[in-house]
């Protein structure tokens, strides 16, 4: 059943800009570095001995922001698909459980963002190779920088999906998404327990893999809480 629901959700996403956004996010992040390195490559190369590492840091200064904002955009968009045409009623009148409806939307978006992260790693590698640093290509770092922020952002995905699906007024989830972005942007001076900080902090931790595990753990927890609340609410 869940398989069919997921297929239905992918169908509903067609021609609504989802896949374009999934491409635009990572492309935008790298395009900013194209501008950055295009304008002042000489200066940036003098900033560090480790040119690849410095390039990855530059990319990573935008990745968390793009992910947090991207999550706000796609969760609100997927809720709007049902909201706009009052389709929640029709969807939930089908012989399916509300739990699987919520799960399906989460899976679909998690997959979409995973594709974005994969694209990010390809674009990062591509432009990095074009810049032609005099160094070995750090493949494992590219993977870490492209995927860890995504895993660390899973709790935000669960939270935003929850808020978006239970809000009739999409202004609410969009606003919480923007507030989260502000927290991500100023994460350096804020406490560690704020989930919006996680996509941005992996470098400060000794074992960055811990942020991935935290992401999975709290992502699962918030998903369950969101799902229970979604199930208990009246259909709008």
């Amino acid at each position, binding site marked *: 059943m869940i398989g069919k629901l997921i297929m239905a959700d992918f169908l509903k996403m067609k021609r609504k800009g989802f896949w374009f956004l999934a491409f635009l996010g990572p492309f*935008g992040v790298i395009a*900013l570095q194209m501008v*950055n390195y295009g304008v002042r490559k000489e200066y940036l190369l003098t900033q560090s001995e480790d040119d690849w590492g410095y390039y990855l840091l530059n990319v990573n200064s935008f990745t968390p922001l*793009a992910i947090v904002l991207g999550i706000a955009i796609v969760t609100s968009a997927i809720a709007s698909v049902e909201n706009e045409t009052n389709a929640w009623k029709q969807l939930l009148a089908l012989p399916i459980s509300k739990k699987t409806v919520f799960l399906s939307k989460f899976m679909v978006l998690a997959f979409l963002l995973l594709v974005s992260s994969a694209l990010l790693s390809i674009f990062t590698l591509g432009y990095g190779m074009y810049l032609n640093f005099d160094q070995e290509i750090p493949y494992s770092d590219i993977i870490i920088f492209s995927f860890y922020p995504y895993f660390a952002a899973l709790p935000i995905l669960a939270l935003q999906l929850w808020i978006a699906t239970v809000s009739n007024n*999409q*202004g609410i989830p969009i606003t919480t998404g*923007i*507030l989260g972005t502000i927290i991500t942007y100023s994460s350096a001076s804020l406490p560690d327990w704020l989930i919006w900080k996680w996509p941005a902090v992996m470098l400060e931790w000794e074992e960055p893999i811990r942020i991935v595990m935290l992401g999975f753990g709290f992502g699962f927890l918030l998903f369950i809480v969101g799902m229970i609340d979604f199930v208990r609410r009246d259909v709008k």
Partner: protein
Amino acid sequence: MFLSILQSEWFKLRKSKISAIILAAPILTFLMGLTMDGFEFIGDDEVNDWLLFFLFSNLTYSLLFLPLISGVFASLVCRYEHQAGGWKQLLTLPVTRGKVFMAKYTLLLLLVFVIQMLYVVAIFSVGTMKGYTDAFPMAIIWKSVFGGWVAAFPLVALQLWMSMIWKTFALPLAVNVFFTLPTILAVNSETYGPYYPWAQPFLMMYSVEESMDSVFYVPWDQVLLVVGGSFILFFFGGMIYFSRKAI
């Protein structure tokens, strides 16, 4: 007639959870101001505590928050009409499309003005709670907040345009994010930053100087060219779009 349209726009908005969204900005500024301590060590005793905290908060507020949240307002003032054929009902009234557009735009400017004022209140509250003893730099803060408001005029116009095209909040936000995030890079460049419309709120609010007689903290030709130019483009673009839009 314009005033009654404006009034009805306000009635529609009042039931749209607008107060929660308006209060989001000052509350976040307030909480972050209370939890953040680092910036007090940056300045020496010579620098006014208020000013230091104000500039520190402005960094996130003017760079990201103000441009992004004003886009949410724009989507909110169109939300009512996008639901269940609201545009049809509104435009069967004896109103012109131009006036409807103007009323929505005016309301947006008022909303942005309100959050600018609430932002000052948040700054003032944090400073009072932390017991700043320096004199409150009223003139500097007022000038900066006013400048940020004016710099938001073109951005709000573009967002209103985008919100009239799309029913969802998500796509206008995507456009907004697409233009707002590069600001972080743009403000680092002295050559290109001044010409980037989305960097203007930051430049107006952050580059404060005490000894300046002009109304704004950026040169007049930049205000006229960049803010004025993009305003004309976005405002009339949106207005022409709306007057031709098939309802």
